[in-house]
């Protein structure tokens, strides 16, 4: 469809764009990215025929654009430029209608029904027909952008070039515009080439991306390949973190604000003094939010949280909407839901056990509340679906004063779970139904939270120091907690017998 072959060029003999080479297929959404001054707009001007090429060729359907007349070119390719101020008060419809210029012949050709139909249809699609008789100048930048998009679309082009089309647009209109373009690309085979400023938007919409730097090609590839942290950091001279989009399979880049020291904020060290324990709940409040991965009732999943609440509920607690109830509970007790991980347990909170373990350059605090009333063997067959409403019975908190990778979080959870299984085995706790060794209870919860300050810890497998501490610590604290539990139970049984 569109081929850019070894194109070089610029202004007044100064070469700005050097040896750019790529091709775009029919119906493809192609993005051009690069820092300011990287030559994106210059390249677009050369592609649209405004600037002479010093070298190379731009071809549409294997014909060089320099062989086409201006009108022929305008029927194949339309351009949506960056907005410039308007001088004369043309109406919206007059402005859009100008897009039909290339389809007219001779000096005095009249406006046909076909022209009118196309103009009305496109104005509807771009959602501007309700103000078609107003002056363009009366409208905001975002609306003007849509008016000029409509002008370009009534040219009925095969290819649409856009220069930062989402400038001036509100978030919703950015999405609307790009959705519209993508629909046109998918359904009508419109080839879209867009200079985009926003890397994350480009990732969401582009099939392919050209990354430019200093007028040269840095990459032409899928968004996933172009967005390597290393490449982006190098080209944009900044620091970004690449993450998958949480809902769709596209990469997203996150900026890191300020300097490293500013980002980390005040130094915090999580220790026993920060715990407050009452019969109703165990609470840990941190001055800085901790990066947390957890399976709590509230604040589950991954996120940054500064309040951690393990709440005691009665064994008969039964609420159809326990999440909602928990949120209310937290709010009523002064814990903002957005900053809090909340867990529940029917276990008597006095059966807790905690300790700080020192490692080399880091430390770990482990807090466990355990009861084994409904211990199960997770491998048993026909395992009944455990009602999630039931409060958990073994809740494990692992706080790390260190900087963990994603892998380390996952490995911490594995290691902690292995340790838990070992405790239950050593305490000879059996599944009530199968009479086989239990591996946990049906509603256990875990959280791993790290300050993300200080020492960088890449792994937390059992062969690493962190892994070893977690394994040993969880084992010890949990065993102790279970022993508390048994002691109490025995005493209770004893009392009830009498």
């Amino acid at each position, binding site marked *: 469809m569109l081929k850019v072959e070894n194109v070089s060029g610029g202004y007044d003999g100064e070469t700005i764009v050097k040896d750019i080479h790529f091709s775009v297929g029919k119906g493809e959404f192609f993005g051009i990215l690069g820092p300011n001054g990287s030559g994106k707009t210059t390249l677009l001007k050369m592609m649209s025929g405004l600037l002479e090429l010093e070298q190379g060729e731009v071809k549409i359907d294997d014909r060089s654009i320099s062989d086409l007349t201006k009108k022929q070119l305008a029927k194949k390719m339309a351009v949506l430029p960056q907005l410039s101020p308007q001088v004369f008060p043309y109406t919206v419809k*007059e402005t859009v209608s100008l897009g039909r210029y290339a389809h007219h012949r001779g000096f005095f050709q009249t406006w046909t029904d076909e022209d009118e139909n196309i103009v009305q249809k496109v104005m509807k699609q771009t959602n501007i027909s309700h103000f078609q008789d107003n002056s363009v100048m009366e409208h905001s930048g975002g609306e003007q952008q849509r008016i000029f998009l409509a002008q370009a679309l009534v040219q009925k082009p095969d290819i649409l070039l856009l220069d930062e089309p989402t400038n001036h647009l509100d978030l919703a209109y950015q999405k609307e515009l790009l959705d519209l373009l993508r629909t046109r690309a998918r359904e009508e085979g419109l080839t879209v080439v867009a200079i985009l400023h926003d890397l994350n938007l480009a990732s969401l919409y582009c099939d392919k991306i050209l990354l430019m730097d200093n007028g040269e090609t840095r990459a032409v590839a899928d968004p996933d390949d172009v967005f390597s942290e290393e490449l982006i950091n190098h080209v944009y001279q900044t620091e970004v973190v690449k993450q998958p989009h949480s809902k769709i399979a596209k990469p997203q880049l996150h900026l890191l604000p300020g300097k490293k020291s500013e980002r980390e904020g005040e130094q915090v060290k999580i220790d026993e003094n920060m715990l407050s324990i009452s019969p109703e709940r165990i609470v840990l409040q941190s001055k800085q939010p901790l990066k947390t991965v957890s399976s709590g009732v509230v604040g589950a999943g991954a996120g940054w949280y500064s309040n951690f609440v393990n709440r005691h509920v009665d064994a008969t607690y039964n609420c159809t909407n326990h999440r909602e109830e928990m949120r209310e509970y937290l709010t009523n007790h002064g814990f903002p839901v957005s900053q809090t991980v909340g867990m529940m347990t029917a276990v008597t909170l006095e059966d807790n056990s905690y300790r700080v373990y020192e490692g080399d350059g880091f430390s770990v605090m482990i807090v466990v509340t355990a009861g084994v009333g409904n211990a199960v063997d997770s491998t048993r067959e026909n395992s009944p679906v455990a009602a999630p409403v039931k409060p958990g019975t073994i809740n494990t908190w692992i706080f790390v004063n260190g900087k963990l990778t994603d892998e380390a979080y996952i490995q911490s959870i594995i290691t902690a779970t292995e340790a838990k299984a070992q405790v239950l085995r050593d305490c000879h706790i059996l599944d009530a139904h199968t009479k086989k060794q239990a591996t946990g209870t049906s509603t256990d919860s875990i959280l791993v939270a790290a300050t993300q300050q200080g020492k960088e810890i890449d792994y937390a497998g059992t062969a690493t120091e962190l892994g070893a501490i977690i394994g040993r610590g969880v084992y010890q604290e949990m065993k102790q907690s279970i022993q508390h539990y048994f002691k109490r139970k025995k005493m209770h049984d004893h009392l009830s017998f009498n």
Partner: protein
Amino acid sequence: MKSNLLKYTLSLAFLISTMLIAISVGSVSVPIPEIVKIIGSEVFHLPIGNDVDPKSISIVYDIRLPRVILAGLVGASLAIAGAAFQGLLRNPLADPYILGVSSGASVGAVSTLFFNISIPFLGMYTLPFLSILSALATIMTVLFFAKKIDKTMRVESIILTGIIFSSFLGSIISLIIALTGEELQQIIGWLLGSVSMRGWKYVGIILPFLIIGGLLLLMNTRELNAMSFGEDRAQHLGVDVEKRKMLILAAGSILTGAAVAVSGTIGFVGLVIPHLTRKLWGPDHIHLLPLSIITGAGFLILTDLLSRTIISPQVLPVGVITALVGAPVFAMILLKQKKAKGR
């Protein structure tokens, strides 16, 4: 949407009424029915009644009618040229006078008179021909320098360059006048702009150029619409910008050159009329150009009428009146533009 019929009817009504009034009013007043009869008899050879004074026939046909028509043609030429320059340069302040084109044409005209140039085969068209040529040369030079000053050719740069050229060319004219010595009053009177005592001959001089220049511009109305969104935008829409730009500049210079050749420099018509027409009827050049022709003609007929009646029996140069009206309008547009930018 204002209907096109309404636009043209009102504009034509304005033109015709100014014509009739201008022919009627003067040291000897001629009633309008008589004017109709005289024109009917002279142009269409209709029978004329015995009640018409032969002196009136002479006043109407030999003096007032050619004067009114010449004023109309000059006004039309300047107005359509101004409208085209404004669209092309995306600038509501562009005007043949402000851009220096009128001065350029004057230099051509004055030099022709001074050096007594007569090009064979052109005869009486030598003067307008050289005026047009120097108008064209001036606009090209102005645009060339404006581009040198600032690549993006901002409005301010073009106007500034135009003013510099106007002053420069004005001093050349002054130099020629100083060297002439005699007929000073006449040349200055001509420079200030006037359509008096020119007769049918001058109508014959300007008419062909108005037709050529006017048609050229009317064939480029859609291109002018496109170019008023910027040259890059126009090219993206499919306009052959380089070619069209040259055509429009040439047509504008033909119109200005011819107008200056027959009436001297009459300023601000090319500024005020397109501006007013756009305000009234919208910026679409397909209608803006023809409506500017009609309104421009009517406007200059009216100002010419004022110039010879306001302190009658003395006759003011019509350029003085247009400048009196035009300069405040120019200032007003400038103020409005600044305000719009400041927002």
